């Protein structure tokens, strides 16, 4: 038998060739692809993968020869393409044919073209370079009179088209929107949809045409346009609210069965269309009661029409429910939707059950009762054999987790994790478990055990935030010192016992966590010396599977522990071993450890016990090297310039050599401070410490948790005193459910069930209910309480402390520390002032507090008020005008109030100035009229006080009547802070009199120009209130004040600021004169000119209340290089903008 088979098999190919000859081009199924057929058959007959590979390679070789041959007909080429596609599908490389596919699409007749296009769409991807060659063909086919050709071109365009070539075909496709054949119109819309996806701004101008497509008489075209609308509405729902009516009408027609029967699918009218529309309506109605109102009817109708008989109606129902829960809620509909969800959940069909769970997952937060209704089903799903159902159930449980059911839910999740192998699942689930454990952990032991499980399972695939957060939690602790200790102790113990196990392999991340915790907190152990732990760590260190990153962590832990012991043999051994390690990093660590060990005192001060949370004072300016630098400078070394500065100089100076000595500005500050100020290095380092900047970085460091003890070597003076105030308000941990109450609950529930359903409960059932009661406990609602008899208490134990409060405390203490430790050497202010400064800062907003130095300057400025005054007047002489000068012609921009006559205005001003003595004392703007009517006029004036901006409102009663209940209110915005109460009330304003109100304004958020608006309300006799609205524009410049510092201080400050912005701007000839340019800046921006050295100038200012900003300006060949530095990251940008404006104007 077998040899007969063999013989016939060998004869087969011959027979087939014969057919072809005999039947000519007989039957499509065979002859068209007969070569393909034989290929497929021979592949099927093969037994091994290797044989297949050989065969395909042969085939490819012959194909390659055929397609490359010049005499290959297009018809043969078509056949080759089909075979190529097949080979490619099997996973073999066939890129040699790509170009021929394009050629075929270009040259072939219709049939060949079709295959050519197909091959192109299958072979090439969107960014393939060969795709450009297709553009011409597409353009040609789009212009063809043959409908089939046009269709093909549109099809290929909607599948794959190079983005940059869209303009070439766009007009042609636009024309097709008016084509008489609906299939062409439809495909054109689809092609435009594709364009909208890949290059939305290129089709923006044809949005109107989409509307036309939406109103097309053909359903297919209309349906196609919905894709575009869905996308556009997703991006910007508010722009298409007006179309809601149309969509609702269309949906009504569809639901009502007005479409051609063709579009029915299993006797349901156009389900795809319905779902598309429901989705659009959901997007439109979200958070919008008015739009939602329009859709209620049709949604109700859809729910009603969808009779449950078929999958497709379930699909529509599901979308309907989704929409109902997305839009502005309507109780009636919600009720119906909830019933629908019930149908899904209770369905025996597994697909529907899955969708039911999915629906529950997203409505559960709105409606927790729903979960209670279906709790038994959910429990069943939890043990479902299909992992997908299980996972969806866990997702659902994750959403309803609270402090009382957390342990059960997390346990279920861990069980699932143990079975799952897929990386994506592990990552997401591990993240969720960690989050829940952190939020709701019922106790120390549980928390550590759970996290151990997370680390062991999640291993090295989990998100790096998880171990970081965990360690931070341990380190920062909670409110109760004792609790913290216990938690840490428990962690140490559990890790030690884990390390006890022989040959246990832990993920690297877990080892890192362990080594950090052991290094930090093993001192809490009563028994056992560091020696034992060091030995354990050492064993890890020499383990081959430990990565070098982990080794660094372990080494850091060993270093910490070494400081706690006297002498350790293991450490000696370790040092010896790793001093010759091939890993340079390890070698360095070993050397560091060695040297530290020799100096016990230093080591102890560097590595104090339990100080991981304290802020590190990093001497960012490396001031301890200042002496070295000064020495170098004295010997004639060039001062250091940062990389970007060097580069810039290179660029601006071109190739010309600079023979002049470099301008003194920096070398002088450096060397002078180097020689004179260096005696007190603390003073220098202070400049970096004091600046808000370092406070910021310090905070960053705590956020990212300084884990490597080795780094602490760079701390200048060790650690700041331990932070004292830990006043927290988190409630104590509530005792978790007692067993007795639990049993009670179950009993209650069973009773209830018995009454209502008269069900007989088996043991198993009871077990399930027990599980249910533990799972659904504390789902916040009355029914939950009544059903389960428990109050909802949330434990905040492991929730991180409220962050703002925390940082505030921290920041205050840190500034405090800095001030105490090293403020005095620099500032002239007496030491006692610091307290005052602190209290001052305490009051300030956090963001502004960062800058203690600025406020220090401010304060010193205040002290020498009279002096400042003098300067101010001098500085502002050009931009500020005293009232009389109003009538003079001057170059500055002054707002001339248009309405009132001059005399009355002058009168008013004199009145004003008499009213406001401050006007004479301070620099101020002119009176600007804000609003008026026949009765009343409101004008205002800005007074630029040193410490704030004072807005003075003048309310003039022009009439001869009394104005009563006069109210002035300033609208509060996020940009401003008004120190006084923003409203003001005068019971009466007499006829023809003037009242004034003052407001101190502070800037809350940086801006260039913002309007401060308000309104005035008043009554005339018994008439109703009359309201007048006004607004005044405040600019950033209103809040900028000069900062008077000397060159030396400038140098120090400059180094301490991290945020810098550089920009070259063109300056006009008149400004080429540097002093003149600086003068302009001084006058218009209120900058203080600190110094002018050669062609460089330095200026300083601060933003009220105390954010300093420094400017370095260098003029060079019609260009000015501006270089801002500030402690605030955004201020330089704003100032730069102002500078540019000023420079352009003048």
């Amino acid at each position: 038998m077998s040899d007969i088979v063999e013989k016939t098999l060998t004869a087969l190919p011959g027979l087939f060739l014969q057919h072809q000859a005999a039947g000519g081009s007989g039957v499509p199924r065979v002859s068209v692809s007969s070569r393909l057929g034989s290929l497929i058959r021979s592949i099927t007959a093969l037994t091994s993968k290797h044989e297949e590979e050989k065969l395909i390679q042969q085939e490819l070789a012959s194909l390659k020869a055929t397609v490359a041959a010049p005499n290959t007909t297009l018809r043969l080429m078509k056949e080759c393409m089909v075979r190529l596609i097949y080979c490619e599908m099997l996973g073999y490389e066939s890129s040699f044919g790509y170009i021929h596919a394009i050629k075929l699409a270009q040259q072939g007749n219709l049939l060949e073209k079709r295959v050519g296009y197909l091959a192109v769409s299958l072979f090439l991807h969107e960014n393939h370079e060969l795709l450009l060659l297709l553009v011409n063909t597409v353009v040609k086919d789009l212009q063809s009179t043959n409908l089939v050709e046009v269709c093909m071109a549109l099809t290929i365009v909607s599948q794959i088209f190079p983005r940059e070539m869209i303009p070439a075909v766009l007009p042609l496709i636009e024309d097709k929107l008016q084509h008489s054949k609906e299939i062409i119109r439809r495909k054109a819309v689809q092609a435009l949809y594709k364009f909208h996806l890949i290059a939305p701004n290129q089709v923006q101008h044809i949005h109107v045409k989409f509307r036309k497509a939406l109103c097309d008489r053909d359903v297919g075209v209309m349906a196609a346009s919905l894709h575009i609308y869905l996308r556009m509405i997703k991006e910007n729902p508010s722009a298409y609210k007006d179309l809601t009516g149309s969509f609702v009408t269309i949906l009504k027609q569809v639901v009502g069965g007005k479409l051609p029967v063709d579009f029915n699918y299993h006797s349901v009218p156009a389900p795809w269309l319905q779902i598309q529309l429901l989705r659009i309506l959901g997007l439109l109605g979200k958070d919008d009661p008015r739009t939602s109102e329009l859709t209620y009817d049709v949604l109700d109708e859809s729910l009603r029409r969808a009779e449950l008989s078929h999958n497709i109606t379930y699909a529509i129902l599901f979308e309907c429910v989704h929409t109902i829960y997305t839009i502005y809620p309507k109780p009636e509909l919600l009720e119906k939707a909830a019933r629908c969800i019930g149908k899904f959940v209770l369905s025996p069909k597994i697909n529907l059950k899955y969708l039911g769970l999915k629906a529950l997952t997203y409505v559960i937060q709105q409606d927790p009762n729903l979960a209670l209704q279906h709790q038994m089903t959910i429990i069943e799903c939890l043990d479902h054999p299909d992992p997908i159902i299980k996972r969806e159930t866990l997702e659902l449980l994750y959403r309803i987790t609270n402090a009382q059911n957390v342990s059960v839910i997390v346990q279920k999740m861990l069980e699932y994790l143990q079975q799952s192998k897929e990386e994506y699942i592990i990552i997401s689930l591990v993240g969720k478990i960690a989050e829940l454990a952190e939020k709701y952990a019922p106790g120390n032991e549980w928390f550590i055990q759970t996290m151990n499980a997370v680390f062991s399972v999640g291993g090295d695939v989990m998100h790096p935030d998880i171990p970081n957060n965990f360690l931070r939690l341990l380190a920062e602790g909670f409110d109760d010192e004792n609790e913290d200790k216990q938690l840490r102790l428990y962690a140490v113990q559990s890790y030690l016992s884990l390390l006890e196990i022989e040959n246990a392999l832990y993920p690297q991340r877990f080892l890192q966590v362990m080594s950090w915790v052991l290094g930090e907190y093993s001192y809490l152990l009563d028994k056992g010396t560091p020696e034992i732990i060091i030995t354990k760590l050492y064993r890890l260190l020499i383990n081959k599977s430990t990565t070098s990153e982990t080794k660094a962590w372990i080494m850091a832990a060993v270093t910490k522990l070494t400081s706690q012991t006297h002498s350790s043999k293991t450490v000696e051994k370790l040092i010896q071993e790793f001093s010759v390690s091939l890993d340079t990093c390890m070698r360095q660590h070993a050397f560091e450890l060695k040297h530290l060990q020799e100096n016990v005192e230093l080591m102890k001060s560097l590595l104090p016990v339990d100080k991981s949370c304290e802020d590190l004072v990093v001497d960012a300016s490396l001031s301890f090297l200042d002496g070295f630098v000064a020495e170098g400078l004295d010997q004639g070394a060039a001062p250091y310039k940062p990389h970007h500065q060097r580069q810039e100089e290179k660029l601006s100076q071109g190739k010309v050599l600079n023979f002049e000595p470099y301008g003194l500005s920096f070398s002088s500050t450096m060397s002078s401070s180097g020689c004179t100020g260096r005696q007190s290095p603390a003073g220098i380092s202070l400049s970096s410490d004091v600046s808000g900047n370092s406070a910021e970085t310090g905070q960053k460091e705590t956020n990212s948790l300084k884990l490597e003890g080795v780094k602490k070597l760079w701390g200048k003076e060790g650690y700041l005193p331990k932070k004292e105030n830990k006043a927290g308000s988190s409630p104590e941990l509530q005792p978790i459910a007692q067993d007795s109450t639990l049993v009670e609950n179950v009993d209650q529930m069973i009773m209830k069930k018995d009454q209502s359903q008269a069900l007989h409960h088996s043991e198993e059932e009871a077990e399930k209910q027990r599980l249910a009661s533990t799972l659904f406990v504390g789902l916040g609602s009355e029914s939950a309480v009544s059903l389960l008899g428990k109050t909802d208490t949330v434990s905040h134990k492991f929730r991180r402390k409220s962050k703002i409060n925390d940082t505030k405390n921290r920041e205050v203490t840190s500034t405090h520390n800095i001030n105490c430790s090293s403020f005095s050497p620099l500032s002239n202010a007496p030491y006692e002032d610091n307290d005052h400064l602190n209290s001052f800062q305490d009051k300030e907003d956090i963001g502004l507090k960062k800058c203690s130095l600025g406020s220090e300057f401010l304060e010193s400025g205040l002290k020498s008020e009279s002096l400042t005054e003098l300067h101010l007047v001098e500085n502002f002489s050009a931009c500020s005008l005293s009232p009389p000068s109003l009538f003079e012609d001057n170059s500055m921009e002054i707002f001339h109030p248009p309405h009132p006559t001059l005399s009355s205005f002058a009168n008013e001003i004199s009145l004003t100035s008499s009213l406001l003595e401050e006007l004479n004392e301070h620099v101020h703007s002119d009176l600007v009229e804000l609003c008026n009517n026949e009765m009343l006029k409101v004008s205002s004036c800005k007074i630029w006080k040193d410490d704030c901006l004072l807005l003075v409102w003048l309310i003039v009663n022009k009439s001869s009547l009394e104005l009563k209940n006069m109210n002035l209110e300033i609208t509060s915005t996020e940009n401003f802070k008004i120190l006084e109460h923003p409203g003001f009330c005068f019971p009466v304003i007499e006829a023809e009199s003037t009242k004034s109100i003052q407001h101190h304004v502070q800037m809350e958020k940086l801006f260039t120009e913002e309007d401060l608006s308000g309104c005035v309300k008043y009554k005339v006799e018994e008439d109703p209130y009359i309201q007048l609205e006004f607004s005044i524009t405040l600019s950033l410049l209103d809040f900028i004040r000069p900062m008077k510092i000397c060159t030396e201080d400038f140098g120090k400050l400059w180094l301490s600021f991290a945020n810098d912005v550089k920009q070259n701007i063109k300056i006009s000839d008149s400004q080429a004169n540097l002093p003149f340019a600086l003068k302009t800046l001084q006058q218009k921006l209120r900058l203080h000119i600190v110094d002018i050295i050669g062609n460089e100038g330095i200026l300083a200012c601060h933003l009220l209340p105390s954010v300093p900003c420094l400017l370095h300006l260098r003029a060079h060949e019609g260009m000015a290089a501006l270089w801002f530095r500030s402690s605030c990251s955004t201020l330089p940008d704003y100032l730069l903008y102002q500078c540019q404006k000023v420079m352009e104007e003048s």
Partner: protein
Amino acid sequence: MMRFMLLFSRQGKLRLQKWYLAMSDKERKKMVRELMQVVLARKPKMCSFLEWRDLKVVYKRYASLYFCCAIEGQDNELITLELIHRYVELLDKYFGSVCELDIIFNFEKAYFILDEFLMGGDVQDTSKKSVLKAIEQADLLQEEDESPESAVMSKAHWEGGDWGGGGGRGRCLSSLVGGKARTKLPHTVSVQLLYSFVLYPVLLHSHLPIIPLKGSGSLACNTMNTLLVFNHLI
């Protein structure tokens, strides 16, 4: 929006792939391999939806062929399932009681139908009639060109003849070597018989009609469409 669609056999052989999102060749191959493994490992009574990587996978098995679509998280799974079914209906109508072999040997046709039905990952036309009309329009040219026998006709022919191994097998073999012209040649017959004996075991799973006929083997083929509906309701 659909990300991609795959058709593969129970043996893990890819039969058709359509990608609606630009992706490198290597990535594609990896995804196909992994996804096939996952789907093939699932038991028949399990849920048709899968969460796989960051995607949702909707799959359905028709005879020996798996249809598998990857969609985005917010898409509707059920309607995707129906989309697969509509595609199968289209194939069935075009080929006439379609089986895996039809798709293997005429995969380019299957692609054409898919392109007419889905465009760029979204449903283009849900009307069965207009999809097939568009395909037939293009096919007409082919007929002029090669004067073939239409798929339906060949089907009708093979329903009449019963080749050895019983109705079912004969009908399906029609898609392998079927053709009126050749039935007259005696050796063709032998070839077909040969196929039914030699290759049949190999192609065992590929020859079954995709739309499963549960306990209705004796029903004639032209009732297939009513059966489709019927079967779907079960």
